């Protein structure tokens, strides 16, 4: 995972298989970065993610809740078709926006 803080937005770029073990290893780093920057917007980029499951949904929902403390907005970016389907099952897009290549869907 890479991250970048630019103009009030904190970007997280995930790659590979975002399974249970990977999320467990990344979680605390993301929590700390959000608390450190208290950003207006957090963008989670899934472009390079080849696998995601319900653990990923739980992780995104928890970051959404964490960000509410700072009145920040969470945006999910560049989901593949199958990853989009998995996220959509949870109704998550009623809570947060989705973007593809910087364009809101």
């Amino acid at each position, binding site marked *: 995972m890479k991250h970048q803080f630019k103009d009030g937005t904190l970007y997280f770029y995930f790659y590979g*298989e975002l399974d249970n073990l990977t999320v467990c290893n990344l979680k605390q780093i993301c929590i700390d970065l959000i608390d450190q920057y208290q950003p207006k917007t957090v963008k989670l980029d899934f472009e390079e993610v080849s696998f995601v*499951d*319900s*653990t990923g949904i739980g992780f995104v929902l928890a970051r959404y809740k964490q960000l509410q403390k700072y009145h920040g907005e969470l945006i999910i970016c560049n989901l593949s078709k199958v990853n989009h389907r998995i996220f959509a*099952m*949870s109704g998550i897009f009623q809570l947060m926006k989705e973007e593809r290549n910087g364009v809101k869907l």
Partner: protein
Amino acid sequence: MNKMTLECLAHLENEAFIRTSAIAFLMPLNLSMEDCMEIKTMLAEAVVNAMIHGYEGNHEGIVRVHVSYDENQIEIIVADEGCGIDDISQAMQPLFTSKQHLERSGMGMTIMQTFADDFHITSEKGKGTVVTLRKRIQHECVSE
């Protein structure tokens, strides 16, 4: 008909091994990328449930995974001898989770239900849980 069984300790790092091994075993079926992704995801859900909920993170538990297929369907059975599920219909509800503090989404059962053509679960308190997932094989029409 072909089949295989995997038996692993309930270490979370074994989940990736189980899902990739199952997909490797199913290689002769030339599944579509979409079917592979669906199988991997539903299997991951069942295995993570066994490890986190069944054994409640106890690494000494054993997770058994049976994968079999014939010309019509793939069957995946994931069994644990963990704590069992109190209330299956409650556990099946989308977004229901008993482990919110672990940032679980409560979507595992819904994902399995959506991706499997046939999904079924039996559980006995204190004895364990068996999840059965079946997927029909789509035969592509090959024109001569």
